[in-house]
């Protein structure tokens, strides 16, 4: 019986312009199946687009934001989008909408917006930190 480990996964590649969200999701499912724990998914840079509630791909195409949010919800895993990366790219929750007096909010549940401290915490507390980058 192998020692069970805890992981933080960081996605920096965006859906549709990279394979990163899909590779990370298949990996995340495999690590849960192996009995390990996923402490947190952290979205950084272009990776924050995965947390958009407004992505609407054609119905015969994969919907990575929807698949990831269903996975996070099912396993009660925290999904965090970096606040600075998210605000630049137009991803906001209700609180940031109010703060910046924006016309809408579009963060998909169960994602949250938080600072890079969440990533630093992952590097200090998870047994493994894995990065999923774009390939361009």
């Amino acid at each position, binding site marked *: 019986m*192998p020692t069970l480990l805890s992981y933080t996964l960081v996605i920096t590649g965006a859906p549709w312009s990279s*394979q*990163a969200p899909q*590779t990370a999701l*298949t990996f995340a*499912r*495999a*690590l849960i199946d192996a009995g390990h724990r996923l402490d947190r998914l952290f979205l950084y840079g272009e990776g924050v687009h995965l947390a958009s509630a407004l992505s609407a791909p054609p119905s015969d195409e994969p919907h990575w934001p929807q698949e990831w949010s269903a996975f996070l919800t099912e396993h009660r895993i925290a999904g965090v989008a970096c606040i600075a990366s998210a605000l630049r790219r137009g991803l906001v929750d209700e609180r940031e909408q109010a703060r910046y007096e924006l016309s809408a909010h579009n963060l998909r549940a169960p994602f949250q917006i938080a600072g890079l401290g969440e990533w630093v915490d992952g590097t200090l507390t998870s047994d*493994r930190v894995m990065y999923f980058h774009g390939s361009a």
Partner: protein
Amino acid sequence: MKQAQDIGTLHILNKAPDHPRFMTCLSSLSDQDTLVLIENAVLALSDADTALPRHTVALEADTEARGLSATVTGAQQISHAQLVELTEHHSRIISW
């Protein structure tokens, strides 16, 4: 953690062979390290110009997707579950 460092580093590479980071990765490997080719990096398996190190494995879903699985001879192909196992055994992982 329980894993010894002496089994080397796990390098996970997703860049195509003509990406600058691909060669930097290959030239940064030690003998005891393991290289995992994923996404566009699996194209190295069909690249006449790329010499891969001894401990190279490739993610099967990515080789199959690109029509490479039947022609692959240079590297063991692994599932995502086997990739998880590799991350269990390596406390040091670099994603290129």
